């Protein structure tokens, strides 16, 4: 109430709603497109309201797949993507939390070195070491496998840093009390540290799930078989350059399906999502 302004702040609301509509517009169009005949779309005649092909298109997309390109039911692709995302998220959390625990609660030679080695990986996103990493995976025989898809992405530093930062804020007195109570390191971890870390784990899970689901470059390189495709790659492969052949309604339906899980996670777990974003960037 610092400035006298009678009534709500119209200008601000207008700007915000404009922003919201602009953000939503592409998705809206996508939804519309997924409910129409392909010919309507290809002719450039697509109206701005939904058509009547919703059930038909989605059914075909999920269970049959595009007819002219890969014939992979998108439903199966979604399963692949889900598995990948979950494995990456859960795997990353497990590995980084125990690493952080080791680094914080123990003293041992090369402790610092180990930490720095992990930390430095922040500076090596996959895009800068594309082909050599590919070669390693290939020579391990892991192409076109879930292991190859997920394991190389599991060990990055963000989780470890987050947990380390959090563990540093746990009072020493808790550990001392536990020791007096007779707890060893494993006990302390399971009984005390883990429960305390719950919100951080939830927050990290949201971020990592999205990260895993949306992976592009890596699955593109590693998977060639149609049945190993993730949904994000699947879409790309559906868009043939001679776009008269692209079944746009299926592409758009696939896009909707590809967007729903991560967006749902963000909306349902918004608080953790925000916390996760803010914490991992510090």
């Amino acid at each position, binding site marked *: 109430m*610092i400035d006298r302004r009678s009534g709500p*702040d119209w200008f*601000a*609301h207008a700007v915000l709603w404009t*922003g*919201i509509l602009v953000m939503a*517009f*592409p*998705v809206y169009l*996508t939804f519309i*497109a997924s409910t129409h005949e392909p010919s309507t779309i290809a*002719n450039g005649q*697509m109206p701005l309201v939904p058509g009547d092909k919703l059930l038909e298109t989605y059914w075909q997309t999920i269970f049959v797949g595009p007819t002219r390109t890969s014939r992979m039911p998108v439903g199966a692709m979604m399963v692949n993507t889900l598995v990948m995302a979950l494995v990456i998220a859960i795997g990353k959390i497990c*590995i980084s939390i*125990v*690493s952080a625990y*080791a*680094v914080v*609660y*123990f003293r*041992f030679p090369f*402790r610092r070195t*180990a930490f720095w080695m*992990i930390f430095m990986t922040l*500076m*090596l*996103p996959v*895009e*800068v*070491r*594309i*082909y*050599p*990493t590919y070669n*390693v995976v290939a020579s391990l025989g892991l192409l076109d496998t879930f292991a190859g898809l997920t*394991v*190389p992405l599991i*060990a990055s530093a963000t989780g470890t840093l987050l947990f380390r930062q959090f563990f540093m804020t746990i009072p*020493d007195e808790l*550990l001392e009390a536990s020791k007096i109570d007779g707890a*060893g*390191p494993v006990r302390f971890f399971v009984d005390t540290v883990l429960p305390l870390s719950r919100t951080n784990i939830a927050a990290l899970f949201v971020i990592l799930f999205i990260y895993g689901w*949306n992976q*592009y*470059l890596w699955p593109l390189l590693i998977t060639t078989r149609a049945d190993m495709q993730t949904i*994000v*790659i699947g*879409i790309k492969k559906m*868009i043939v350059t001679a*776009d008269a052949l692209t079944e*746009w309604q299926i592409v758009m339906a696939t*896009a909707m399906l*590809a*967007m729903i899980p*991560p*967006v749902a996670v*963000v909306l349902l777990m918004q608080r953790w999502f*925000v916390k996760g974003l*803010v914490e991992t*960037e510090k």
Partner: protein
Amino acid sequence: MEKRAIFRQRWLPYLLLAPQLAITLVFFYFPAGQAVWQSFLIEDAFGISTEFVWFENYQALFAQPQYYRAMANTAVFSVSVTVLSLSLALLLAVMADRQIKGANGYKTLLIWPYAVAPAIAAVLWLFMFQPSLGVVARGIRALGIDWNPLLNGTHAMILVIMAATWKQVSYNFLFFLAGLQSIPRSVIEAAAIDGAGRTRRFWTIVFPLLSPTAFFLLVVNVVYVFFDTFGIIDATTGGGPAKATETMVYKVYQDGKLGADLGGSAAQSVILMAIVVALTAFQFRYIERKVHY
């Protein structure tokens, strides 16, 4: 920095660290080392003979006009996306911060694009701007502009910039909003009592206090544009038309794809690595220093 209370076991920490370190070594450092090594070699297409050539790959790279083209593309791309997404996000955040109630509602409505894969975002924008069937494209052509990102390099770049900005705005918005909300209300009230009107308050008090956030976002955005936009480019323009949207990262992918120039691709990777290291180091050095209470 150090915990006072610790455990004494010697072998347990190694066990705990093993998975992460193993994966890190095998899938990070080894390939990175390989890339560096490879950048000093020339291999023939079959990998039969290799020759150590010191910096020849690098020299060849810098002699290639296409490499400079890629650098220019990357620069144009980065600057545009960063400037656009930061300013739009700041505007939205300031407007949202003005709402006493409802700020959270707006937050929900504006942050979800973060969850959309860059490649998907690209497909969405591609769809809207497809010269023949895109809804928006139709509108533009109706205005008389011959919009065609398939043929026109500038149009293609604009398309990619829009898609990348769309995604990034929500991330920046979130951080700006958090930054704005962390400024104590009483400081703003004090400025109001001191006689500063809304605009003046913003530029003399709010914006300076927001500058650590802004700075941090600047670096993050640049890194994002450099690397995370691979999917956007691949899904829309494939680096075209005629390499108009080929950024440095994309070039690494293209050049190595057929195994034709592994040495050159490796050299490019090494250069990119150096850039990331520089950016990250910069971020850590300068951001840590500027935090107000």
